[in-house]
């Protein structure tokens, strides 16, 4: 019973959503509209669940003093500070529990949440992404080597596309556009079509109850 009921719900909901795509009349439209509302509510709660899970996982690591546990303390503290700042003084035009926080905003230039977001988080996130450039450059030097005709083809294509993304002449830009438009698009379309067929197959397996791993176990 514990398994049969979720399987039946999945089957009916799956069939209902598929049918509603082909029969745009009552009651299908109404039913799928209700399901969309449910999904959006569940997605909202998933964010809360994700946050609680983050707190729990970090707390366990701190409790057991796992390797580099100090970093988890920083993560939890930052999490708490951002939540507190948002709850107490709000963000942008939205008021928090203590109102708009004009006094604090006058002192630091903006609301605490916005100030932290603009002056700390934005720069930290951009920095993390930018550091990739150094690793990619280092990895390209060590590994991007022509060992076979195929790897030479990849190497030459990559160099031409990289040059196409520079300002060193329109010829590279046109060659790069050609590579992206024809060989790249051809390959990508093959991947997209295969992935689409895979999604249809997986969906049918879930709807018909063959694939049950989402219930846990098996």
């Amino acid at each position, binding site marked *: 019973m514990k398994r049969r009921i979720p399987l039946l719900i999945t089957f009916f909901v799956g069939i209902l959503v598929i049918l509603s795509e082909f029969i745009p009349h009552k009651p299908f439209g109404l039913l799928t*509209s209700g399901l*969309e*509302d449910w*999904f*959006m509510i569940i*997605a*909202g709660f*998933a*964010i809360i669940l994700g946050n609680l899970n983050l707190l729990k996982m970090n707390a366990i690591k701190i409790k057991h003093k796992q390797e580099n546990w100090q970093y988890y303390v920083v993560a939890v503290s930052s999490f708490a500070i951002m939540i507190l700042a948002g709850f107490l003084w709000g963000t*942008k*035009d*939205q008021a928090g529990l203590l109102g708009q926080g004009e006094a604090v905003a006058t002192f630091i230039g903006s609301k605490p949440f*916005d100030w932290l*977001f*603009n002056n700390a*988080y*934005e*720069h930290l*996130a*951009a920095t*993390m*992404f*930018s550091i990739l*450039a*150094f690793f*990619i*450059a*280092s990895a*390209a*030097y*060590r590994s*991007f*080597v*022509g*060992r076979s005709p195929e790897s030479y083809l990849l*190497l030459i294509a990559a*160099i031409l596309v*990289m*040059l*196409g*993304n*520079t*300002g*060193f*002449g*329109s010829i590279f*830009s*046109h060659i790069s*556009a050609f590579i*992206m*438009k024809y060989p*790249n*698009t051809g390959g*990508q*379309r093959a991947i*997209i079509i295969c992935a689409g067929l895979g999604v249809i197959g997986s969906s049918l397996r879930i709807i018909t109850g063959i694939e049950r791993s989402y219930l846990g176990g098996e």
Partner: protein
Amino acid sequence: MKKIETTRWLLYVLIFLSVLLPLIFQINLPITETKVARGVYNLIEDANENANVIISFDYDPSSKPELQPMAVSVIRHCLRRNYNMIFTALWPMGVQMASGAVETVRKDNPHLEYGTQYVNLGYKAGGMVTLQKMGKDLRDVFPADMSGTSIDSLALLDGINSLNDIDFIISLSAGVPGIKEWIMVGHDKYGRSVAGGTTAVTAPNILPYVNDQNQLSGLLGGLKAAAEYEKMTGASGTATAGMDAQSIAHLVIIIFVILGNVRYHINKKRGEE
């Protein structure tokens, strides 16, 4: 081992300098227009007067250097054409990105008015399902804007009830959910024109949608395309300034890739001998 470490550090220093120096001393390398980037410009330029446009901020600060210049240019262009701009976000931090872009545009358009020229509906969880719901009833998904003001009181949204009332959609996207979802729902299901911008890394995955069916009217892929768009709109910004740095950094990487290949083949030859 020590030699490899030294080479790595030399590469890091050169990459750092190749990004830093062109930002300080501008070279102004030429920027060549591409057809896919022109498609975005044409979509915005050729729309009817007072068109309703959704600009979706589907990215976070990590992609800001590439996508924010596009956002600023697109807003400026829509403003010049007197369109009604509706901002939304499929990523939670897209809301802040939209606010930041508006603040940048406001510097040279101090009279930019909320509620009549643009509105910010904020973020809603749910990705593609949210878009499907917006297609049927936008007011049901967003009963209020990001500040909590009822959208019934916003003049700009008068007569806009679903995606059918939108002329075109611009998605600035760094991943999922993003531009692909807007194509599937906005264009494929509701027949709205869709265009947008992505990071350079994502662009090859999205490019197949720029096709004869016009699933995507145009695409701005990465900083170079952002600089192209700035050139088309005649307002150079951070993308144009960053192009010199990107060009030199790419050149340094290419030189090191060639050196890496030379080193590999010399070592291979020595091994054979």
